């Protein structure tokens, strides 16, 4: 505190210019990623070889599958084989990827990857917008100095939306077995009739999927644009004029409520419906947590980068420390939500619910990534970010950030892959390439957006509080 009181902190506008090195690095990542994606697509296994592969895999991994008597016992109760004893249509039909009658075209893996990345960066951009809104409604002062970063991140919403919509429009019948089922249009009682899917068709149908996604995300983005423009206007009026700030608070309040209520629906439509027979009430919260912790991590990365380039002069280690605390705290929050879903489903062992974890926890194909998910998103940040010094150390923070972002990509991967391409899934050239490409494009896009206004919101009513921010001992 003493060093702050000793001198006056100058708060002035800063114009960011993307350094040539950063352009080269981000565009380079995008291009290399693109090339790898192309290579990945062209080297996709053909249908025949992949089905052979999928039969071989479980056999080779069977030896690792000894998890005591309970797991062995559980294996016998294959959820795909449970028959409703009232003699109805099969209540628990097989999940698509295990269904030999519907082999997946190899190209589906490309679309599934596009969905993973498009959705991942969509929820990150949305969470960046939520960050601005929640700081407004909570009257938070400390974050005023860094608010231009989430403002830039939210400009990626339309890009991610277009990508997701293209995937949904073109490939939904390959990715979502309910969409395939909808296409088949089977009459009630006819062979192949699925009572559960038919029951959901009022919600799970192509119209709601496409228009719902478009509508929700467009509304969010309009709020994002409004908050961006109010923030820009604030730069141009005289200091102490609170009109734009007060308006921002009102729009933020409205956005928070709309987003809070509709984001769950969005996550059910796009991701939960991948496993169309399965359901979990916490799913929306879980997806929110994934996007939120990832967005906080990325905000922290941009703060570290801009500071390393001599920008954000009023941002000190104190702000970085707070972002580190957020990464730490919301990693734990994510784990809490993850555990709530997993523990309750695992404990109750109800066939139609536990099928989801059979495909992830019990399936040797995804088991490693299932555990990796918890290690990367909980154990690693928990241990790395626990101490004060580590949260104030740019290098350590960057390492934690890298683990978290990759970890949450893996998280989304695990939500999408088992239900879409199942046994054909693996992390190969295509996956690594496409994720690299998205990271490059996203970083480039956000850096460009950062140049469009001052990096410091000089007239923000809390900017002094933020400049003199001190987290204490």
């Amino acid at each position, binding site marked *: 505190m003493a060093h*702050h*009181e000793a001198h006056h902190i100058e708060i002035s506008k800063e114009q960011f210019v993307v350094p040539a090195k950063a352009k080269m690095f981000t565009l380079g990542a995008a291009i290399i990623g693109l090339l790898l994606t192309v290579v990945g697509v062209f080297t996709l296994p053909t249908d025949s070889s992949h089905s052979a592969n999928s039969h071989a895999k479980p056999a080779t991994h069977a030896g690792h599958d000894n998890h005591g008597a309970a797991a062995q016992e559980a294996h016998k109760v294959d959820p795909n084989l449970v028959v409703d004893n009232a003699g109805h249509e099969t209540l628990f039909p097989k999940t698509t990827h295990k269904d030999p009658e519907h082999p997946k075209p190899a190209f589906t893996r490309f679309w599934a990857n596009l969905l993973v990345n498009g959705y991942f960066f969509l929820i990150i951009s949305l969470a960046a917008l939520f960050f601005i809104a929640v700081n407004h409604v909570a*009257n938070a*002062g400390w974050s005023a100095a860094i608010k231009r970063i989430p403002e830039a991140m939210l400009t990626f919403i339309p890009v991610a939306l277009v990508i997701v919509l293209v995937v949904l429009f073109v490939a939904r019948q390959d990715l979502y077995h309910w969409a395939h089922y909808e296409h088949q249009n089977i009459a009630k009682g006819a062979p192949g009739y699925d*009572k*559960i899917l038919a*029951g*959901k068709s009022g*919600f799970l149908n192509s119209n709601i999927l496409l228009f719902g996604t478009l509508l929700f995300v467009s509304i969010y983005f309009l709020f994002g644009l409004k908050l961006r423009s109010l923030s820009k206007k604030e730069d141009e009026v005289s200091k*102490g004029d*609170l009109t734009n700030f007060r308006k921002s608070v009102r729009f933020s*309040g409205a956005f928070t*409520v709309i987003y*809070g*209520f509709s984001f*769950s629906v969005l996550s*059910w439509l796009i991701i939960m419906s991948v496993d169309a*027979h399965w*359901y*979990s*009430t*916490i*799913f*929306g*919260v879980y997806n929110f947590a994934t996007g939120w912790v990832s967005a906080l991590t990325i905000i922290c990365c941009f703060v570290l980068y801009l500071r390393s380039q001599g920008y954000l002069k009023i941002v000190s280690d104190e702000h970085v420390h707070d972002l580190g605390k957020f990464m730490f*705290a919301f990693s734990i929050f994510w784990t*809490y*939500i993850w555990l*709530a*879903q997993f*523990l*309750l*489903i695992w*404990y*109750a062992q*109800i066939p*139609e619910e536990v099928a989801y974890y059979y495909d992830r926890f019990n399936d040797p194909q995804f088991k490693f990534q299932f555990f990796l998910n918890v290690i990367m998103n909980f154990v690693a940040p928990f241990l790395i970010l626990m101490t004060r010094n580590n949260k104030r150390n740019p290098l350590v923070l960057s390492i934690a950030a890298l683990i978290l972002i990759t970890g949450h990509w893996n998280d989304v991967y695990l939500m999408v892959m088992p239900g879409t391409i199942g046994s054909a899934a693996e992390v190969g050239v295509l996956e690594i390439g496409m994720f690299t490409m998205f990271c490059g494009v996203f970083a480039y896009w956000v850096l460009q957006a950062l140049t469009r206004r001052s990096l410091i919101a000089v007239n923000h*009513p*809390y900017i*002094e*509080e933020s*400049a*003199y921010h001190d987290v204490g001992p």
Partner: protein
Amino acid sequence: MNHDSIIRQPLVVGGKTPTDVTADISRPILNKPSTSWRVGFVISFIFLLLLVWTIGYTVWTGIGVWNINKSVMWGWDITNFVFWVGIGHAGTLISAILLLFRQKWRMSINRSAEAMTIFAVMCAAIFPVFHMGRVWVAYWALPLPNSFGSLWANFQSPLLWDVFAISTYFSVSLLFWYLGLIPDIATIRDKIKTKAGKFWYRVFSMGWTGSTRTWARYEVVSLILAGLSTPLVLSVHTIVSTDFATSLVPGWHTTIFPPYFVAGAIFSGFGMVLTLLIVARKVMNYENYITIGHLEAMAKVVMLTGTMVGMAYITEFFVAWYSGVEYEQYAFINRATGPYWWAYWSMMFCNLVSPQVFWFKWARTTPWFIFMISIVVNVGMWFERFVIIVTSLHRDYLPSSWVMYSASWTEIGIFLGTFGLFFTCFFLFSKFLPVINMSELKTILKNRE
């Protein structure tokens, strides 16, 4: 040097100086109790006697004096248990999580909210303990060595997790509360005139001197206890929610339960804090310390958490339909339209609809109005637990087990009696201990003399 934004409102108004704080806050302790205090205390004590009597009757006669039955084996008892545990959460949230979020407005209200936590947990514990029936062997719930008999504890049961969660919660809350009290007890020790007062405040101030060294140690311990309390805010009601959610009962087994219960607990806790403090600030003349700004902030928390639980209600309902599982669908349709529809719609109205009035500035800055809503919130959260427990249990997979349940007078008496315990404790607290944390509050005064 102060860099607070010009748009921040002062947290303490009336130009109070540190001397004023000490004088105002120690006044009820040093003076004779007021008439309103005496009347309130006697009424609370009568209800406490009702608790003693109804519990005595239950233990003496047997658990059959309650109306719980073969299907509704949890009735008012567990409803009340969850109700009281939930109320406790505001105290911990204020003292731990708001501390981490650097919300300094908590300083005027944390002491009384923490006290409320402790009393609420005491009330809560009564219900599962006496529901055991043979309460004299209640200690079998603990994992005692076999020399005490058999090892009864079932570590896979969320009911046992509750034993650990709540006893930990109670101990840490009590410790945290008491630690915060020590400097203030020392202040009273130095001011009080009576002989007995001098003795007891000396004992409980544990030789506090106010030296730099003591303060440094005190702050470290405070921070550690705040760190320990933070996961407890989440864990206690999470584990209470698993009492229901790990089961196979339709309407109970749903993954959103843990965070939804925590949000509901904070909601109900703030409801009760508002109920108590709006009265206390008036009666004790603490309007300059517990300002309209404090009430507004708490009203906002109530609105936020009320909307969160409301969203959980809607989510559950939608996903029950979406699941295609007829038992789940029935459980929710039956909640809304079955014989207990009135409880369901009371819950919906009180918890989701009523807090929305706080979108209006007038509503969240008018004390009597906030008070009314806080009562509605308390009622609504009781109904929520009643809805969850009774509507799910009164319909079984086997239609021959379908029953109705209404509480016996003993169950009602115990519930009313716990209010007696709660308010008796609160009245004693407000008489013998400083209701506001004096030493902490002095750090945020603008007027330093």
